């Protein structure tokens, strides 16, 4: 697991609550909707944690601007991590 993946999973645990995630192994292929059953308001909370942790460089608002809610929630944890890592590592941009 990458550092970013570890951190995103930790944020998800905070947002969703440990009780629900106990039986679930969260990895890159875990989807927000089908697997995590993340509510839209919880994704807002996750977005805020991402902004606080990684700052404006990840430009989360722009990342989701072209997607509707269904598309956003259909993303996997890996999709999100890939976006963050691409923004954090200038070489990959």
């Amino acid at each position: 697991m990458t550092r970013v993946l570890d951190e995103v999973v930790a944020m998800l645990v905070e947002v969703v609550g440990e009780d629900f995630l106990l039986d679930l192994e969260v990895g890159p292929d875990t989807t927000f909707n089908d697997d995590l059953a993340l509510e839209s308001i919880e994704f807002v909370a996750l977005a805020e944690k991402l902004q606080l942790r990684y700052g404006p460089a990840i430009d989360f608002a722009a990342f989701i601007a072209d997607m509707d809610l269904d598309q956003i929630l259909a993303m996997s944890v890996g999709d999100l991590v890939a976006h963050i890592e691409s923004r954090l590592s200038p070489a990959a941009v």
Partner: protein
Amino acid sequence: MPEVTARGVRFHVQTLEPCGPCPPDPPDPPTVVFVHGLVMDNLSSFYYTLAGPVAAAGARAVLYDLRGHGRSERTPRGYSDAEAVADLFAVLDALGHTRPVYLVANSFGGVVALNAALARPDRVAGMVLVEAHGPAERPGGWNENMLNTLGKSALALEYERLADQLLAIGWRQRGRQAAVADALVNGTSLLDEVAAVEPVRPADLAAVACPVLAVYGERSDVAGAGRLLLRSVPDCTLHVIPGLAHTVLREGTAELLEVMLPWLSHHAGTRVPVTAGAGGAL
């Protein structure tokens, strides 16, 4: 800042600071405040639709969950229009936004916005009313549709819009959303207080001092409220979206933005994105 305490109640707040391409934003950008609808709604319905583009246009987008909704505190009472107006300005005070703001309201949020503009014309610079409840010729029955919808909303949203997702998701979202609706509808005085809300009559609408953009769906139950706004509010533009009913915010997002961003640009001095109207991804 995710939460503020206003009037002794904890409110969940999200702020999207102005962003986007150069030129740099002015030091004091306009503030646009989003007011969502009742019971099954929360700030996320704006967060994923209008708030990002508004921030990208150069405004500060402020979203908050109404009392008892989303991640804001649920109190046993305090759900009347007057309480909601007081909550709105108290939240803005707590955030330090004392200059006039633009309100963007959906559904019951329109009742809050209209009453806010009438109560404090010095603090409301303009309003975008999306499928707003509130305007009616006379009291009695004006909010019947809304109350009926509320009564059915928990079921309708679960079984219609979320039906296919529910199959895949199982109990969690469904259980939690039903629990939130149940706690609000059955555990607070919300329904009684909303039932007692007076409509905003033509004489009051005529006193609305700020510019208003009203956007309604052609097939909406409340389309009449839009026509009444157009007739009664001195500076009102009405845009009707063909084919849509009450779900303009979610289903008509692209067209709503195409109308709203130029309107905001004209009145608030925000930018109009070059991509607007170019057949966006939505």
